[in-house]
C-alpha cells in the first residue's frame, strides 16, 4: 500500500472539499432516514388505529396541546439564523486560515498536466467521458440530468410524503433519486478524483501513480463480439441492441411497478408515464454501459459513421 499516494490525493487542497462532502453526506443521510423511519413507525401505528388517527398530532416531534402550532419568526427563527451565520463564518475563517487555496505554476499551454482534471464537482461528467463520446458525456447527459431534475415534480404523482421525511410511502422516488445522486454522481466524482491517475487510468487506492504505465486494455465495440461487419449491419445491430436494451429495461420496470406500486401507475397520465420511463431507462443504460466497459471491455453499443453510443 502506498499511503503517501493516498495522502497526496486526499490532502490536495482542492480535494479537501470532497472529503468534507463524504463526511457530511452520510451524516445528513442518517439524519434524514432516522426521521423517515420514525415517521414510518408513526404512520404504521396510525394506519392500525383509527381512533388514534383522530386525536394524534401526526409528527414525531415533541408536542403539547397547549403549544401554539406556530411561533414568532422574531426571535425563534432569526436567532437560529444568526447562530448559523456565526458558525458558518467561524468555520470558513478557520478553514481559510488552516488551508491555503492552491496556486500552481502560471498557465502554460505547452505543458500538459497529466492527468488534467476539471474542478472536482465536474469530475463525474469527466469520468463519463471514459464511457461515452464527448457530445454525450459533456452535453447530452448533463442536459438529461437537468431535464430529469426539472421533470421530477411533474411526474411524481404521489401525494404522500409532502413536507415530512418518509421511506415507506415513497420508496421508488427516494430510491431512484438517491441512486442517481449517490451512485451516478457522488461515486463518479470520487472515482474521477481519487481513482483516476495519469492517462486517466484506473489506480486503486494505495496504488502508486505510475506515469509510464502503458494501458494494455483493449476494448471492442459490441458488434465485434458478434462478428458483425460493414457499416449498415453494424448500424442496425447497434440500434437494435439499444432499442432492445431500452425495451427490456422499460418492460421490466413496468412489471416491477405494476406488481409493487399499482396505484402509482394508475395515477399517472400517459405523458407522465412516458417521461418518467424515458429518464429511468436513460439512467439504467448509463449504468449498463459503465459496467459493460469496466467489466466486459465493451467500447460502444452503437457505431455509426457519424457518432457512437
Amino acid at each position, binding site marked *: 500500500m502506498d499511503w503517501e499516494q493516498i495522502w497526496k490525493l486526499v490532502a490536495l487542497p482542492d480535494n479537501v472539499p470532497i472529503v468534507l462532502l463524504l463526511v457530511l453526506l452520510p451524516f445528513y443521510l442518517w439524519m434524514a432516514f432516522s*426521521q423517515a423511519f420514525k*415517521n414510518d413507525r408513526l404512520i404504521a401505528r396510525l394506519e392500525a388505529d383509527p381512533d388514534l388517527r383522530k386525536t394524534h398530532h401526526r409528527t414525531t416531534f415533541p408536542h403539547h396541546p397547549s403549544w401554539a402550532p406556530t411561533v414568532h*419568526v422574531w426571535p425563534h427563527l432569526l436567532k437560529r439564523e444568526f447562530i448559523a451565520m456565526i458558525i458558518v463564518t467561524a468555520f470558513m475563517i478557520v478553514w481559510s486560515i488552516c488551508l491555503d487555496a492552491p*496556486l500552481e505554476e502560471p498557465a502554460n499551454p505547452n505543458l500538459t498536466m497529466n492527468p488534467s482534471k476539471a474542478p472536482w464537482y465536474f469530475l463525474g461528467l469527466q469520468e463519463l467521458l471514459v464511457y461515452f463520446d464527448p457530445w454525450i458525456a459533456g452535453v447530452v447527459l448533463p442536459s438529461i440530468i*437537468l431535464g430529469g431534475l426539472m421533470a421530477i415534480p411533474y411526474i411524481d404523482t404521489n*401525494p404522500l410524503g409532502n413536507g415530512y421525511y418518509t421511506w415507506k410511502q415513497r420508496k421508488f422516488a*427516494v430510491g431512484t433519486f438517491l441512486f442517481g*445522486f449517490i451512485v451516478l454522481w457522488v461515486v463518479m466524482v470520487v472515482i474521477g478524483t481519487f481513482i483516476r491517475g495519469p492517462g486517466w487510468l484506473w489506480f486503486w487506492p494505495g496504488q502508486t501513480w505510475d506515469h509510464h504505465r502503458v494501458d494494455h486494455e483493449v476494448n471492442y465495440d459490441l458488434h465485434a463480439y458478434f462478428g458483425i461487419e460493414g457499416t449498415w449491419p453494424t448500424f442496425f445491430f447497434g440500434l437494435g441492441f439499444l432499442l432492445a436494451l431500452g425495451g427490456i429495461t422499460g418492460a421490466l420496470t413496468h412489471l416491477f411497478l405494476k406488481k409493487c406500486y399499482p396505484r402509482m401507475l394508475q395515477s399517472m397520465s400517459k405523458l407522465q408515464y412516458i417521461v418518467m420511463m424515458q429518464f429511468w431507462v436513460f439512467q439504467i443504460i448509463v449504468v449498463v454501459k459503465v459496467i459493460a466497459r469496466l467489466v466486459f471491455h465493451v467500447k460502444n453499443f452503437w457505431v455509426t459513421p457519424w457518432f457512437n453510443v
Partner: protein
Amino acid sequence: MSHDDHGHGHGHGAGTEAPEAPPVNDTEGSLLNALRAKAEPLKKFMGGEYKETQVWKSIFRHKLDKSHRNRSLAVLSNVFLHLHPARINRNAVRYNFTWGMGGITFYLFVLLTLTGTLLMFYFHPSKGQAYKDIMYLQNDVPFGNLLRNMHRWSAHAMVITTWIHMMRVFLTGSYKPPREFNWNIGVLLLLFTMLLSFTGYLLPDDQLGFWAVTVGTNMARATPILGHEGPLGPELGFTAFNDVRFALLGGSVVDANALLRAYIWHCIAIPIIAAVLMIVHFWRIRKDGAISGHAPVMLESEVK
C-alpha cells in the same frame, strides 16, 4: 491667525464650562448629589428617552418589547427580514428538519459576494497580470491570502451545501404541489452555482485553472449541431473558429479573451442571473405557503 483661534477657543470653552462648575458647597456628598442631579437628564435619555426622539422614531417604527404586535412588526417592517413571515410552523424552525441548508447556501453566496468584491480591487483580468495579482494577494496584501482562501473555500462549500439542500428538499417531498415551479428555479440555481464556481476556476490563470477549463470547454466543441466536433456540426459549417466553444472562450484556445470572458461571467453576469433567480426562489417560498413542513404525516388510506 493662531491668536485669533486661541481667543475664539477660549471664549467658547468658558461658555460651556460655566454651568458644569457650580459653586462648591461644604461637603463632598452634596457635590456628588449635585453631579448626579446634573447627570439625571442624560441618564434618563440613555435609559430609554432616546427612543422618544424624532431621529430614533424615524428609523425604528415600533418598540422592541415582547408583545405579539412588536414581534410581528420587527419582521414585517424591516426590509431585510420581511422575506420571512411573521409566524412560522413550530417544527419548521427545527434544525433536523431543514438542516438550515438553503439559508447557509444563501449566506455563503453573501460571503462570496463580499470577499469577491474585495478581491476585485486587486485583480486585473489580463494575461500575465492576473497571476501576478494572485501572488500579490497571497504575499503582500494585508489579509489578502485569507481573503482569497475564504473565497475559494466558500465557493466549494456552496457547491456542497447546494447539493445537500437539494437532497433535503427531495427527501421531504417539498417539490410536490404547490412548489413544483420553485424546485425548477432551484435546479437552475444549482446549474448557476456550479457555473459560478467553474468560471472562477480560470481566474488565477495557473496550470490548475487553465487545464481544468481546457478540459471543461473541450466538451463544448462536441456539442451536437453547435460544436465543430459534434454530430452534424461540421456538416453545418462549424469550425474551431466559429462554433459554440469559440463563443465561450473568445478564441479557439484558452487565452487572454477567455480570461476576460470568464471574469465578466464570473463577476457580473452570472451573479446577476443567480441573484434574480434567488429573488424568485425566496419570493415563491412565501407565495407557495412558506416551507413545506414539518407537515402532519398523511396516510395512504386517506388519499382520495
